[in-house]
């Protein structure tokens, strides 16, 4: 390779690297920026940090487990708003960034402000047009107050569309149904503390020209035995219920209904009862005479009432909030259910993966600089800097993964989100081990890039999926033994496969652009490393696949069921076996080996991601987030292969000319 072509290659590589960095940087900024325009919300004041710190540790039962309020807030906001923060212009024109716990606190305790927040993400303005609400743009965020005028029409349309089979609904119909559900869920939050704010009106209690009196729901609950007795008496006498009593009961039922679904926050006193109560459930306890202690329910409602009413005075509110938190935490602790709540609250506070991403991005920059720096002192400094930042990124991946294991009480991989962060950590780790074995810098160069891309993927997936990824697993997956030996093995196989694809991409780029100055030693070394990674991919995928079969044999009574996930794993095994046999038979040499290894990336992607979107099989997760990313990845792989083929052809013709 001539010096001029090598120089041109370096320039092309530098431009490519800059483009990649710009894409990563843009992605980072977009992901972390609040979405939508800054809305003016008159009178909005932010919650104090102290209030938020107290609130986020409140335990809540949701999704089959106990979690901190901050986790519940995070995923609820993500589901409705499509982001974990929003910005509004509050009192005095001050721009306030509202994060999940603050947003939920607004919804629960300051609904008059909350309904003006741009909570709802609408991806298609046709949904709003259909319900008679004037949209602002094709895609925007709207407040409850914006949508409320079209509420009735929305419910009516949603009911009509629900009659259509799920697969046959068009996007507008599907989004109309989603919006109707989102609105209903949101109403269960903003109406939750209605019972505390308004109490009940005792009609006819006021004397002439004096307003009717108000009473607390907890006070009415305390008189439940007398109310029941009176109702029984009137029924026994065959008389209609007293109109005042009827009105009172109606108000109690309404209050209970509004507080029935939003938040399951009250741990039952009976340790054998696994289901926590909402405020609405607690209100009905003394009235319906369940087995639950009515005095406890009355006391709980009293505390909730005092908390909600103190909201206008920050000091008093914090005091009441502490009382509420301590009361609930103590009861949850006695049931052994509070253990991981503080850990989980701190997990989300620390934002580990964002820091990991920052380290990997920094490592990517230094790695790219290292590749162009040659062999001098600067290169050595860049080498160690890349190593240090990549290792720091790895640590910032491992710590939260370990924390998640402690919180979930299971091995690290149980759902698709888990696989992404696990693959990010393990592929970086394997790359660092490979670097330690080869000391050729290419494995180190790949590690932070792979880490960056995978963490971005994890963040994107979490945004699109908007489901709590620490919720418990279904019965058939609920086996720590099999999750450890099968799932981890197969996922490690994905890591190794992706790493081999990336390393071969580096090879094609290096050789195609002449970055290696024709150094056959480096080429051979990279080929041997990729060969080793293919062997590792085969080993892990084959063992993982067969272990999966053995697990399936124990769960479903059959070793192999041609499920798409099983087929995907088999494809990796067959593909890597083909590569190794083709190489042993001499059918592929260096170029062929790397083409095949790059294609391994597509096979792994099909097995890891694509099969989940097929909508069939026992491993079908039933989501759609990230489908576009798969096709982008396939296109990138195709582009790399085309580039490689062209590079090989050019090199071949150059050699032929030289020989002539």
């Amino acid at each position: 390779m001539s010096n001029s072509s090598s120089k041109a290659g370096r320039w092309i590589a530098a431009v490519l690297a800059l483009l990649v960095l710009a894409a990563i940087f843009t992605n980072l900024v977009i992901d972390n920026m609040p979405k939508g325009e800054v809305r003016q919300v008159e009178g909005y004041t932010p919650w104090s940090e102290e209030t938020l710190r107290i609130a986020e540790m409140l335990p809540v039962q949701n999704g089959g487990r106990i979690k901190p309020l901050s986790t519940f807030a995070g995923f609820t906001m993500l589901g409705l708003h499509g982001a974990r923060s929003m910005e509004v212009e509050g009192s005095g024109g001050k721009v306030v960034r509202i994060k999940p716990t603050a947003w939920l606190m607004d919804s629960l305790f300051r609904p008059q402000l909350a309904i003006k927040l741009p909570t709802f993400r609408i991806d298609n303005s046709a949904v709003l047009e259909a319900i008679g609400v004037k949209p602002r743009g094709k895609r925007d965020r709207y407040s409850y107050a914006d949508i409320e005028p079209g509420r009735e029409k929305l419910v009516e349309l949603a009911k009509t569309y629900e009659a259509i089979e799920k697969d046959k609904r068009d996007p507008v119909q599907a989004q109309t149904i989603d919006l109707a559900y989102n609105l209903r869920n949101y109403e269960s939050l903003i109406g939750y503390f209605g019972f505390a704010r308004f109490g009940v009106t005792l009609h006819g209690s006021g004397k002439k020209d004096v307003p009717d009196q108000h009473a607390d729901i907890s006070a009415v609950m305390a008189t439940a035995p007398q109310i029941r007795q009176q109702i029984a008496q009137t029924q026994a006498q065959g008389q209609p219920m007293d109109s005042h009593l009827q009105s009172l009961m109606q108000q109690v039922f309404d209050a209970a209904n509004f507080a029935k679904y939003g938040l399951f926050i009250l741990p039952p006193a009976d340790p054998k009862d696994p289901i926590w109560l909402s405020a609405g459930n607690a209100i009905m306890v003394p009235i319906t005479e369940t087995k639950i202690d009515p005095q406890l329910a009355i006391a709980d409602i009293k505390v909730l009432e005092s908390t909600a009413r103190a909201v206008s005075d920050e000091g008093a509110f914090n005091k009441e909030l502490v009382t509420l938190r301590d009361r609930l935490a103590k009861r949850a602790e006695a049931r052994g259910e509070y253990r991981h709540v503080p850990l989980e609250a701190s997990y989300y506070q620390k934002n580990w993966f964002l820091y990991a991403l920052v380290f990997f991005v920094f490592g990517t920059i230094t790695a790219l600089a290292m590749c162009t720096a040659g062999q001098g002192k600067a290169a050595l400094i860049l080498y160690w800097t890349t190593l240090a930042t990549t290792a720091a990124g790895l640590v910032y991946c491992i710590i939260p993964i370990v924390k998640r294991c402690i919180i979930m009480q299971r091995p690290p991989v149980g759902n698709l989100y888990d696989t992404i962060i696990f693959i990010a950590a393990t592929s970086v780790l394997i790359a660092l081990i490979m670097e330690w074995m080869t000391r050729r810098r290419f494995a180190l160069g790949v590690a932070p890039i792979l880490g960056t891309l995978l963490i971005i993927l994890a963040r994107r997936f979490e945004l699109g999926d908007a489901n709590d990824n620490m919720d418990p697993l279904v019965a058939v997956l609920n086996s720590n033994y099999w999750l450890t030996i099968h799932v981890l093995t197969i996922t490690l196989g994905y890591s190794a496969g992706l790493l081999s694809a990336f390393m071969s991409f580096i090879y094609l780029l290096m050789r195609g652009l002449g970055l290696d100055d024709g150094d056959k030693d480096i080429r051979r070394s990279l080929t041997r490393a990729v060969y080793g990674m293919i062997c590792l991919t085969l080993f892990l995928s084959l063992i993982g696949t067969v272990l999966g079969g053995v697990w399936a044999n124990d769960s479903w009574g059959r070793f192999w069921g041609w499920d798409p996930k099983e087929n995907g794993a088999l494809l990796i095994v067959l593909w890597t076996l083909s590569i190794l046999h083709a190489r042993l038979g001499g059918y592929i040499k260096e170029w062929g080996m790397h083409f095949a290894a790059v294609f391994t990336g597509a096979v792994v992607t099909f097995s890891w991601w694509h099969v989940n979107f097929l909508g069939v099989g026992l491993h079908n997760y039933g989501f759609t987030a990230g489908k576009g990313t798969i096709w982008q990845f396939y296109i990138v792989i195709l582009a790399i292969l085309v580039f490689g083929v062209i590079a090989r052809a050019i090199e071949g013709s150059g050699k032929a000319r030289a020989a002539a």
Partner: protein
Amino acid sequence: MEISDTPPLSKAPRSIPGKIYDVLSGFGLATITMLLLGLLTWFATLEQIDNGLYPTLTKYFDWKSFFLLPEINGKMVPLPLPGGYWVCAVLLLNLILGGIVRIRKGWRHYGNLIAHFGIILMLAGGGVAHHFSERGNMAVGEGESSNAAEDYFEYVVEATEIKDGKAGKIHVIRGKDIDDLQDAKLRTFRLPELPFDLQLTGYLKNAVPVSANERAPDRQQLITDGYFLMEKPKLAKAEEAERFTAGCYARILHRDGTKSEPFILAGASFRPFSYRYQDRVFTVDMRKRLWVMPFTLKLDKFTAAFHPGTMRPAKFVSEVTRIENGGEAKVTIQMNEPMRYEGLTFFQASYGPPGAGPGERMYSVFEIVRNPADKWPEYSLWIVAFGMAVTFLIKLGSFLATGSRKKRHV
């Protein structure tokens, strides 16, 4: 330089059988068959979205399928591919000839030899399971016992004499002996202990008897006693095959050479066909095969637990007592923890009644599998893992010892 696992070919001219052997045991055939199998698996994965698993498996992997044209999104792909069954057969042959017989023998290659042997064991296990395993299910209510499983798929014909309102010895004609009797093909089954024989014909895998008054036969089917057998549409999903109801036409052949009018036997019928002959009463029925277990299973308690506040299942547990020869053993069967005993495996499969309230009596459904190769995949796993570990560790050692690490760039 790469180490080859296959000895180099001799330079001497090879005979034709020698050349065939070289091809059959070569890396080329191994690579091609594995690529073809991969391609078939990929197409089958995509095709099952539109066509369902059951027909897709038949199309891609049945022994009767020699060549096929894949489909994606309902459109045919003009790429003829060989049937998966035959690709597997060639691969197995290649594995035996190349991976066991021809492979280099020596300590550096024993790992590969062991791994190949493990894979052969795995494939053999698959074959044994495919041809010799039996599957059925047993539903038992809490406090109740059962010692019989019902086959998922196999329909049999049962004939018996009824004496004093009780069934006598049941004579069973197995499914494999009748499922080829399609259209006009008929077969006579000798029943020496009964005063007649049975002649069966017109077998349909999935059919229902339909009144000719309600619907006219669409394929000129035989009408008997006002009814004919109508074939039901083919179903796509594998689990739907469990709901097939087979049917056929039958005729009773007396020893004196006379015979009855033809009648319908159908899995979908609620009652067996009843026949009076020489003042004796007999019944002939078509039903799913029952197999008797060597022990009785009593369901003591069934628990279905869900993650609190959700409909997400947390665990399904059946506490049972296994009763055999007067002895009893308490066993727990749950998801991922089947009961294996006397060659049978009991899996927790289902439960009911759906939406049962607290205190309601539950029943549990077990899937029962008799698979002679039940544990073979597990044994082969350890063999393959050991073989591959040996091979790759040798390669890793060689890489670290002689590799480019010595010429490191840092």
